[in-house]
């Protein structure tokens, strides 16, 4: 078992390095062709989602298959504030986080009565239920398949009414998301990501965090010491639900619409993939996993047969005819196939994800050094 060594100083360094890496993304992502705001926003938002999911799954050991429901609740609440009160994102996001927190409290209260696979299936059932409801009975609130959108004619009580035809834009006290060449939106997301990372770090280092890890290791033994474990698990669930709600709110703040497809269970599966790929239970892992999946999704989806043919032009024709159809299975629309395969390989051979891979390589080198001495 790997034991992480840390001191307050090393933690501070970690937060600083993390912030620097995130804030400088527009610069160092340039060579990778990923330095445009829309994609970087997605990195930050899904990173936040994965950090929150990791608090529940990585630290507490509860595998939730319904976390996308909180994204949905966060988005809907945020857009409703946009519609009814103001286009300023601050009140809207507060509402989104609170609503998803309340929803998580209810869901968690029900689901946390069971552990293990039962918990996974209960969360899956509840999320699927909310998804179905959003498409059917709740259409007055969710607008069903068209999705919830902001319009010029919405009665925004705290703001001057817009002229007809004017497009309502989200803003932070006047700073619009598309300002600074689109970077304003990204920096707002980045600020939340760093804040979320810091909070997650504090939780991990706190006595509460060790309680959660105790729950993961052996819940029965925790209970035998006379401790009521339920409130701790519930707190972890609500915190992680609020992270998801915040991510959903940010999505809505960057692009003011909300749709039920965000709540589908495949979306819940995606965050599981991100967390596993990056490294369960580590702090940075989920963010790396989220960024990696979103980055490669973007790159791979853009490649199609023609692009492949262009790249492999130097090959003889018969080889080209052979290779291109096979490769094009894995790119473009077939990106999910690659994702599924990579995910399986990671679960089979590297259950700790990218972070474990990194540690193994580092250990091998440091051991080799020790052997030489």
């Amino acid at each position, binding site marked *: 078992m790997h034991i992480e060594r840390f001191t307050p100083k090393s933690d501070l360094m970690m937060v600083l390095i993390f912030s620097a890496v995130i804030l400088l993304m527009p610069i160092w992502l340039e060579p990778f062709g990923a330095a445009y705001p829309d994609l970087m926003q997605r990195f930050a938002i899904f990173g936040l989602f994965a950090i929150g999911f990791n608090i529940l799954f990585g630290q507490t050991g509860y595998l939730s298959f319904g976390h996308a429901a909180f994204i949905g609740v966060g988005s809907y609440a945020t857009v409703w504030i946009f519609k009814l009160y103001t286009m300023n994102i601050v009140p809207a996001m507060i509402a989104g986080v609170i609503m998803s927190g309340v929803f998580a409290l209810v869901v968690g209260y029900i689901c946390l009565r069971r552990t293990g696979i039962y918990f996974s299936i209960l969360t899956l059932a509840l999320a699927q239920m909310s998804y179905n409801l959003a498409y059917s009975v709740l259409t007055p609130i969710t607008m069903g398949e068209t999705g919830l959108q902001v319009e010029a004619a919405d009665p925004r009580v705290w703001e001057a009414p817009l002229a007809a035809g004017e497009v309502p834009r989200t803003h932070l006290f006047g700073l619009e998301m598309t300002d600074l060449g689109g970077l304003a939106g990204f920096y707002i997301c980045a600020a939340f990501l760093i804040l979320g990372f810091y909070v997650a770090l504090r939780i991990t280092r706190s006595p509460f965090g060790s309680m959660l890890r105790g729950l993961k290791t052996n819940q029965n033994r925790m209970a035998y010491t006379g401790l009521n474990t339920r409130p701790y698990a519930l707190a972890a669930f609500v915190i992680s639900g609020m992270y998801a709600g915040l991510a959903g709110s940010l999505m809505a703040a960057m692009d003011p619409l909300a749709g039920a497809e965000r709540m589908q269970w495949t979306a819940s599966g995606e965050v599981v993939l991100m967390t596993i790929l990056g490294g369960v239970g580590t702090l940075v892992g989920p963010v790396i996993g989220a960024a990696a999946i979103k980055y490669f999704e973007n790159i791979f989806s853009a490649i199609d047969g023609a692009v492949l043919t262009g790249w492999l032009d130097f090959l003889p024709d018969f080889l080209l005819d052979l290779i291109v159809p096979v490769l094009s299975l894995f790119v473009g629309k077939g990106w999910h196939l690659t994702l599924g395969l990579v995910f*399986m390989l990671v679960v089979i051979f590297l259950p700790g994800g990218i972070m474990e891979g990194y540690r193994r390589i580092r250990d091998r080198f440091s051991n080799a050094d020790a052997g030489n001495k």
Partner: protein
Amino acid sequence: MDAILLQILNGLDKGGAYALIALGLTLIFGTLGVVNFAHGALFMLGAFVAVSVREVLTISTKVKDESVTFFEAFKEVPYLEVWFGDTGRMIIDWSVPISILFAIPIMLAIGLVMERGLIRHFYRRPHSDQILVTFGLAIVIQEIIKAVYGANPIPQPAPEMFSGTANVGALFGLGDNIAYPKWRLVYLGFSIAVIAAVFSFLRFTTFGMVVRAGMADRQTVQLLGINITKRFSIVFGLAAVVAGLAGLMYTPVISPNYHMGMDFLVLSFVVVVVGGMGSLPGAVAAGFLLGTLQSFASMNEVKQIIPGIDQVIIYLVAMIVLLVRPRGLMGRKGVMED
């Protein structure tokens, strides 16, 4: 009264599919202790065996169309029809039942490969790892099918004899106005037959006896010098066959598409949990029960009282059962208690 009978039939029909998938899931869980999230993918693969068989049977050639006399016209005629005439036409018409013959060995092979190649390495890993790796496998299978067959549903007609509706009302002496699709009656009968076959296989054969003994106490059976792992692998193959057949026979009801497996999987898991993890009769009973409940909930009269109930009834029942009776309806003590 008519409406109620119709809804019961509807429910039993859908419940049949749930029960078959849940039966396989439970078999796998009870024997290998593995939670198989790729079971829906097996259901879908079965459906696509039917699609493939039909495609092969209808490989066509161009034949001069005699009915058009003004100009040279050609029409596509399947080779089978050219060679065998009416017999060929009948074979194509019966493609769905015929594909059962192909589906059994294919699904058995897929199941065995899956178990020996992948699942075997996950016996001792935590349940969450099993869920994750089979979830990944389900994505992979689904995407391969999507790449090969495209994203659109491919309708499969039932044999002409079973297309159209049957007058069920007369059968029960309730008047003549209850019509029900014949194929769905066939499906109901088929699912009951498969369930009966699985149960009698486990009950009355030596192989089944060993498997049941292994489910109850794996170690003791091994101490008696029986290679229980090998038998459990075969049970996995069997579960794959059951899921595949369930999907195959369902093709005339819903056209096969690449995500049908996932759609059914979520519900089947709920069925397994309601029935009780590891209990075969529980899985079957819960399958039919939830199917019936769902179809009653989708009646207009019920929807008027509680709007949206048809969308959530299954999940709602599952939650209540899990909270009130965590072991499930017929769950055994000590199986996945925590």
